[in-house]
């Protein structure tokens, strides 16, 4: 394996940056994101070149088979990224270009590459969750490329993988435990209901379709606990208006092929319709060709006549509204945490999980529900009051009995 990786020259990188800059300047409100630029140009320290993987026929076949097995495009992209990272780690450990076939031939390097927790940035340590996904990607590779790897290695690739992992793992009790990686950071804080109400009111004060859009989108996010990108990618054809007037949205669900059905309340359905009317009125005044229509194909959430409202813009709008409302800034995903927290404080967790689209309780418990101390104090106080009343009644009862 002596193939050299094609490297992007500083000149080509500068040209690419200039080109992206021109495109971004054409879109109002979109600033340069230098980290993303580094990723695109491949000059990021830890992110391997795309071509290293595209040259490996085994990986290309694997990705085709993975897609044929029904993996979602995001899932295919994630596994591709993890394989790239494994190869990059192996390259760093051995000091030479390495391909997946070579990696499986060298059990020691395979094991070390799988538990290598050095991140892309100097001094950064990857999480255990990332390492687990990396192992899943390599295990999936071993399964789908089983015939080719058997002919290459002369043995079952799963056995090779087991040996590689056991070689790096610690023997504990009746099994093995992998070391490396830091515990995954749990999500940030969950804003309170008052904070969300203040932010929504501020975001909706903007005149025109922008205010109506902010009210509708952030309102739906807060009320349904939907993921921001699932809602942002909503298509008009995925909005169903029932004869009863209810509006149901069919949203993409993470790691699922089938879409999730979300029913809007009357207020939010009206907010969505109001936004569509405002946008269409604005578009007709501006001479734009696009329209927002429920039940017909086309992006719903728009900032201009071009494409969808971008995630960066959604995030910036929310943070500006937080600043204007005097609330500590939070990301759109915090609204999902707030939904889980508010609902879980009043209802059983399995009901919350069903309502918010969590398949199990573990993720909901560990990453989303963030009980607010004031809520806990309020409940404790009311509990104490009830207990005090019961105690008083008991004392009075005993006194009456004594008399």
């Amino acid at each position: 394996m002596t193939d050299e990786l094609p490297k992007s020259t500083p000149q080509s990188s500068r040209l690419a940056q200039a080109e992206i800059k021109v495109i971004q300047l054409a879109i109002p409100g979109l600033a340069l994101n230098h980290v993303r630029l580094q990723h695109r140009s491949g000059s990021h320290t830890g992110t391997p070149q795309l071509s290293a993987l595209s040259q490996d026929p085994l990986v290309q076949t694997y990705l085709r088979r993975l897609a044929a097995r029904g993996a979602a495009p995001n899932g295919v992209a994630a596994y591709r990224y993890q394989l790239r990272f494994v190869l990059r780690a192996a390259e760093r450990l051995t000091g030479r270009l390495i391909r997946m076939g070579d990696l499986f031939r060298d059990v020691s390097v395979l094991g070390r590459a799988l538990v290598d927790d050095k991140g892309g940035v100097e001094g950064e340590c990857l999480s255990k969750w990332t390492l687990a996904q990396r192992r899943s990607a390599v295990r999936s590779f071993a399964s789908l490329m089983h015939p080719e790897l058997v002919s290459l290695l002369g043995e079952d690739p799963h056995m090779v993988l087991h040996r590689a992992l056991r070689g790096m793992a610690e023997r504990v009790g009746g099994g093995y435990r992998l070391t490396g990686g830091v515990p995954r950071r749990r999500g940030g804080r969950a804003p309170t209901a008052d904070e969300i109400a203040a932010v929504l009111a501020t975001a909706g004060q903007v005149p025109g379709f922008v205010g109506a859009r902010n009210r509708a989108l952030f309102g739906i996010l807060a009320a349904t606990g939907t993921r921001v990108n699932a809602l942002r990618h909503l298509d008009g054809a995925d909005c169903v208006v029932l004869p009863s007037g209810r509006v149901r949205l069919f949203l993409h669900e993470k790691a699922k092929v089938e879409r999730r059905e979300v029913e809007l309340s009357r207020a939010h359905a009206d907010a969505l319709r109001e936004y569509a009317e405002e946008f269409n009125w604005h578009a007709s005044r501006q001479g734009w060709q696009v329209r927002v229509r429920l039940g017909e194909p086309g992006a719903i959430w728009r900032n201009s006549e071009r494409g969808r409202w971008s995630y960066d813009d959604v995030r910036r709008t929310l943070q500006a509204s937080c600043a204007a409302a005097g609330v500590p800034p939070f990301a759109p995903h915090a609204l999902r945490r707030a939904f889980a927290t508010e609902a879980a404080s009043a209802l059983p967790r399995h009901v919350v999980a069903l309502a918010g689209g969590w398949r199990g309780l573990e993720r909901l418990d560990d990453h989303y529900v963030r009980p607010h101390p004031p809520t806990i104090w309020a409940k404790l106080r009311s509990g104490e009051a009830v207990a005090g009343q019961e105690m008083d009644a008991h004392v009075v009862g005993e006194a009456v009995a004594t008399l």
Partner: protein
Amino acid sequence: MSLVRQLRLFSADSGLTARRTPFDPESERLLEAYCRARLAEGAHPRSAEREVSQLRTLARESGAPRDPLPLSELLADPVQIARVLVEPAFPIARSTGRARLLAVQRFVRLVGPLVGRDAASDLCCLDASLPAGPTNGWHAAGTLVAGEPGRRRDRGPTLDGADLLRIVDRAAEGQDPLRRARDRALVAVQCFSGLRPEEVVGLRWEDLEWARMAGGYFGLTAGVHRRGSRLRLFVPGPAAAAVRGLAEHSAEEMVTLTGPVFRARGRAGRLLSYRSARMILTRACRRAGFPAVEAAELRAAFASWLRVQGLSDHEVAEVLGLARVRSVDGLLRRHAELGAQRTVRERLDR
């Protein structure tokens, strides 16, 4: 008439027809031999027909466009079979991928020896050429084939009993009273019974029976073949009333009627096709203000209606003719999700 041709006619009678690519005579002969062997093993004719269809697809995808690879050549090349099983030309469902693997394994076992192949070694070679995951027990080979695990078509909105009644009410259209009664009965049976669409279009008057229930009540039941035996499924009130309304258009009593319940217009006595039945349902949905819904949505809505009537999960499974009660959970999953969303909304709105 060849056996494969007879099987095709069997499918046509059921309203399930598809276009075929012409195959070479040798391949047709092998398929014929395969059908005979499968039927001799006791396979259902429809199963044999479906397996033949999967084998045709494999041969088509192995050869050039409009020029399928002869099956004798395909038999001699297990690696090519594995390639088509793992990377099909078009996205398929996982159940289809598994059905293809099963059909190929049976074909190699039954027809391979007829063309001088060693079935055991061919099956070993096929296994070695297919991807495999780790296994837990002796009984699992871990073989993996292509196919998407979920549904390929997007589902429509979740319906409830009131929505079903609305669809049934809008089913009857046109001036012809017989046609109006037929369409209404067809949609009512699809909405308010556990019959599957192909069972509905194939329903005959002889299959319907008024059974005496507890308390002197007579309930309509329909006989269907499932899982190799004959079942009697309940046909509850709205569907039974619509069927009785259809029977009133004939001069005879309902119990003496014979022949297909849902007849096509034109030639007397011909079954309504699957496609026509689907169109009638789609039109009824549109008139009721819903997008076109699939049989799975109607079954789920019917299950939800049965739960509202006070039936337990086991009783719902009995009415739908389901083998496993757990299937009821799957049918009612989206109803449970919407119910949870409403509960949370009501609680948070306080």
